């Protein structure tokens, strides 16, 4: 007998990603209240840091391009990036967990779709939406609070963010694999991301930390991303320094993403073998 001849190949795998994005957009749209709440939370956080900033002596903050910046200008990139890390890491890690929890993972695996496509597809919507949200947030608070961001720094800062995305993605995929096996892994993800964000200089200058922690924090990928975005936005340094940040972030991202995919595929095969893929 003849089937409807479904396409199988790399091209068709790419087309399937669009189906995942549409599915997740429709699902996100069906939760309108949390969607609005998320945005309101971000705005409230900006207000909070604005008032905290009124108490902070700008002289204690590092100068960018020889200019003193306000605390809100200093922390805005940190808030945006910290929210990006928390949200992206959480969503990537929980994407598979949700599929497992709702019982749709086995249905996905029964389609002629590669596990990598399923993994990428399950998070692609968030990986598009969250950076977009980060950029919109920065623009909105810059306008609302009159922050002095250098417009020419937007593109270089975006490039740093792009180089940083696979790093977070890889951690999330590894976490998804761990969750697939141990069922409960989101607590570790939250703890890990909180530690990385705390010691990244996102909310306060790193030189406030003890020397040895400062040294460790300076090689934290989030520190590199935060600094890499602040320089062009606050110091107007344009593309200077972006290359250095990207040169460090790209290999880190490659390692993180590879390790994540390997972990996830191993976990998927193990759970299939055990027959516990649909259990949560």
């Amino acid at each position: 007998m003849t089937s409807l001849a479904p396409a199988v190949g790399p091209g068709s795998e790419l087309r399937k990603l669009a189906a995942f994005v549409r599915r997740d957009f429709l699902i996100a749209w069906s939760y309108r209240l949390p969607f609005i709440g998320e945005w309101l939370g971000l705005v409230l956080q900006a207000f909070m840091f604005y008032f905290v900033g009124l108490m902070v002596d700008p002289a204690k903050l590092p100068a960018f391009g020889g200019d003193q910046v306000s605390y809100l200008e200093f922390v805005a990139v940190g808030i945006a990036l910290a929210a990006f890390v928390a949200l992206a890491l959480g969503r990537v890690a929980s994407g598979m967990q949700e599929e497992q929890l709702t019982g749709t993972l086995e249905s996905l695996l029964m389609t002629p779709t590669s596990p990598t496509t399923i993994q990428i597809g399950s998070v692609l919507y968030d990986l598009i939406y969250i950076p977009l949200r980060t950029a919109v947030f920065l623009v909105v608070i810059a306008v609302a609070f009159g922050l002095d961001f250098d417009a020419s720094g937007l593109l270089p800062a975006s490039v740093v963010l792009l180089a940083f995305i696979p790093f977070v993605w890889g951690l999330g995929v590894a976490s998804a694999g761990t969750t697939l096996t141990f069922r409960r892994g989101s607590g570790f993800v939250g703890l890990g991301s909180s530690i990385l964000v705390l010691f990244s200089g996102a909310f306060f200058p790193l030189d406030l930390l003890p020397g040895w922690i400062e040294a460790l924090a300076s090689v934290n990928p989030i520190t590199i991303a935060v600094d890499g975005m602040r320089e062009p936005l606050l110091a107007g340094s344009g593309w200077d320094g972006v290359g250095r940040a990207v040169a460090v972030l790209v290999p880190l991202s490659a390692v993180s993403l590879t390790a994540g995919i390997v972990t996830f595929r191993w976990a998927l095969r193990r759970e299939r073998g055990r027959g516990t893929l649909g259990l949560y």
Partner: protein
Amino acid sequence: MVEARGVSRRFGARVALADVSLVVDEGEIVALLGPNGAGKTTLVRVLTGLVKPDDGSARVLGIDTWDCPRELRARMGLVPSGDRSLYLRISGLENLVFFGRLHGLSRREATARAWELLELVGLMEAARVRSGFYSHGMQKRLSIARAFLTEPSVLLIDEATHDLDPEAAAAMRELVRGLADRGAAVVWATQRIEEIRGFADRVTLLRTGEVAFSGSVSDLIAVAVPRRYVLRLRNGRAAGRELEPALRDAIGRRATIAAVEDGDAEHYLLHLAADAVLGDVLASLTAADVDVVACREERSEIESAYLNLAGGGE
């Protein structure tokens, strides 16, 4: 097209499948029958490559299902036993379009195919309603529609009619029969034994993970050893419970007999002893001046066979 050879699978100390074999040819519907926990779902999951057998092998279209390449999955359809296999926040139509696209159809093809299938399973009216608002039966019909997205060569169905009303269940069986007539091999796991007559070509009956029977439906019926009968008896002097003592005297230890609860005064339930023969019992009743107006098995012979083989017979 579907072949399981000596498949065994344990989950911890529990044996889910023990040396189970199954063959389904092109155009054939094989019913996988058995009570809860018999191993039907595990076998279906082994055949789809979602569970690895500890021993033995499972092959579909000549390919080991554990490798389950995409080319094989493209030709398989699965209706899982639970409801939890759909995206409940999006509509039935969007569910089908999404899975159609994962099967490699373009958006336009997937949408057209989704509408066709929604009409086939009677969900046109609810097409744009969130599937989370569907009843269990509607979700099951949507799940069946999904399995038909690409006209599969092999269809594996786990408890398809569990939540369906008789009319919808018959419609689903007709759909599946049509697919088999077009050449597909179908494995139909069920515990609703009444639906296999006139539908399944062959039956494999599982009991605690082992094959208790494998053969045609008529062979299964031949295994039946009916022991319970409903008799319609008349006696000029007494009826109902008043007649029971006289009936017991007549049949002795060969059977027990009691008036049917809520029945009229002429109906009695006869339960034959293990070594008794129905004819002898009826002859005893006649000799005791009781007219045997009618006699029928309390269960269908297929149900009786099922209970005998599945270990639930009395």
